């Protein structure tokens, strides 16, 4: 188990390096340690339960019921699994208060898998039960990551697609995993109960199928990633007539952003462009929406501001060949050059435009923006 713990931690840590210091994303990545922990925990539970299998098979009156025997047999494994998962969580996500939407499904699926592993260990011999639990646990944790349909991915208690800093976990994904975990646990209890008739085993399989369908219905609406837009309070600051708002995770960037942003907007004004009065990382109807990251350079920030004021892709671009791409690139080049942070190539279109008057530049820009709204013929199906 210590080896598995180290591997689980290493995996979670490797995943966590890929996300920003955003609490819910770190927590979600910490729970990806389950990829390694869950199959081993289920196999260990099957092993422990296998020790009491001869007792439960014996046709003698037991003082202690089979289910209670199962609980006693796998208690240590469940405790170890929870301890390992908690250790991974604490070392990766820190001591921050866990987000229940992420943590509860993770622990629930882990406990349910141990219960099911134990029940399998009671029903079939150890020589089969242990490798079967190891293999199926691995398949359950890893295969849905590689396969469509996407909703399968949200049932195993790990949310590796969660979350960019402007997103949060979709509650439906949490419910789907909880429903599935409850069904696994119920199936396990039915399998473990005293009388193992074919009817009971079939009923438990039917229950598992119904629960999978129910969880699939809940998770189906979530695909492809288990995320929704984040609604948290932004941190805003005003400079000149422009307000900049960032997520709390990017608060350290705010001073740098104010310096760079003010200079860019002043430069745009000199070129005759009226920039929006609000730049925000959240959703906004009257401001420009941009995105940044914790270690963004000045050039990254300028790029984010340019993208924020660039014309959006038209809806037709999803289904038709996008004819306005070149014009959109020209707009971006002009915005970057006019910001004072970029220098266009000497013989480029934008460098010629920049040598014209302010009015001519704005007329040229307006024409390019109109062209960005055009699409060509419909795309043929792949």
């Amino acid at each position: 188990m210590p080896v598995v713990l180290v591997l689980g931690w290493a995996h979670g840590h490797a995943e966590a390096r890929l996300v920003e210091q955003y609490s819910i994303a770190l927590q979600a990545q910490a729970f990806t340690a389950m990829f390694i922990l869950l199959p081993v925990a289920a196999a260990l539970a099957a092993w422990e339960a296998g020790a009491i299998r001869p007792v439960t098979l014996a046709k003698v009156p037991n003082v202690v019921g089979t289910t209670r025997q199962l609980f006693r047999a796998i208690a240590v494994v469940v405790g170890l699994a929870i301890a390992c998962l908690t250790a991974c969580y604490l070392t990766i996500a820190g001591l921050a208060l866990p987000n229940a939407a992420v943590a509860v499904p993770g622990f629930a699926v882990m406990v349910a898998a141990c219960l099911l592993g134990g029940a399998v260990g009671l029903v079939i011999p150890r020589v089969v039960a242990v490798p079967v639990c190891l293999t199926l646990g691995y398949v359950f944790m890893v295969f849905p990551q590689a396969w469509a349909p996407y909703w399968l991915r949200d049932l195993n208690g790990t949310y590796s697609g969660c979350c960019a800093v402007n997103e949060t976990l979709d509650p439906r994904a949490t419910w789907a995993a909880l429903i599935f975990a409850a069904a696994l646990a119920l199936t396990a209890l039915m399998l473990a109960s005293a009388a193992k008739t074919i009817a009971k085993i079939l009923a438990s399989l039917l229950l598992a199928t119904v629960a999978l369908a129910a969880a699939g219905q809940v998770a189906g609406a979530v695909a492809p990633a288990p995320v929704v837009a984040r609604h948290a309070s932004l941190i805003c600051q005003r400079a000149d007539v422009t307000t900049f708002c960032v997520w709390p995770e990017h608060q350290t960037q705010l001073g740098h952003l104010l310096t760079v942003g003010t200079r860019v907007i002043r430069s745009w004004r000199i070129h005759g462009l009226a920039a929006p009065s609000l730049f925000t990382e959240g959703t906004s109807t009257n401001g420009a929406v941009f995105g940044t990251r914790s270690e963004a350079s000045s050039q990254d920030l300028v790029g984010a501001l340019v993208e924020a004021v660039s014309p959006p892709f038209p809806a037709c671009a999803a289904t038709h060949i996008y004819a306005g791409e070149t014009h959109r690139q020209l707009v971006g080049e002009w915005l970057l050059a006019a910001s004072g942070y970029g220098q266009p190539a000497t013989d480029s279109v934008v460098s010629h435009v920049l040598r014209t008057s302010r009015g001519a530049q704005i007329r040229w820009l307006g024409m390019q923006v109109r062209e960005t709204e055009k699409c060509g013929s419909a795309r043929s199906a792949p």
Partner: protein
Amino acid sequence: MTLWIKSRRAFLGVLVALLLGVSASAMTGRHVWLPQLLRSLALPVPIALLLTAAWSVFVGYQLVRTVLPADFVATRPVARLNIGLVSIDAIAFSAPLLLVGFLDGAQLQDDALMSVRNVIAFGGLVLIALAYLSPSVIALPAVTWAVISALFGADSHGAPQVWAVPIRPPTASSFMLAIALMLVGAFVQRFRTLH
């Protein structure tokens, strides 16, 4: 002999191995791009690998489903019979794969040979485990090797590492390793037990 055949369910075992082999041959050429833990990349893992692991679990079950101490007082050469059972099961599993492999193109041939190589290696591991480990875990080394190869087997370029033999292409050296494992398994099975 009859008792041994019945206790090992030898005929059923051959039938199950054959069915697993037919299923594996139907899966030949199908891969799943599985995410590699500890590396941000995916590796194509043949689905037939799961069926090969299932074969080793079934063979393990066959070998230990009776009370093993009874083997030590048997008049028949149980150890040799066990080696024969694993070999016959391996042949039953491999036959449909070899048929599909040689009837179809080079890619399928590679995949089929990969499964055959894995069955030989896993059979050897089951025999070694039967000699040295608790009867309850004799299929575990083979299954663990398969799972660990699929979980961690890729190197930084996305190619299978040297030790991840179950997911490596069927090269001559990997076949030699598989055959060596089977021979070692047969040797320890023959000489570690009374018969």
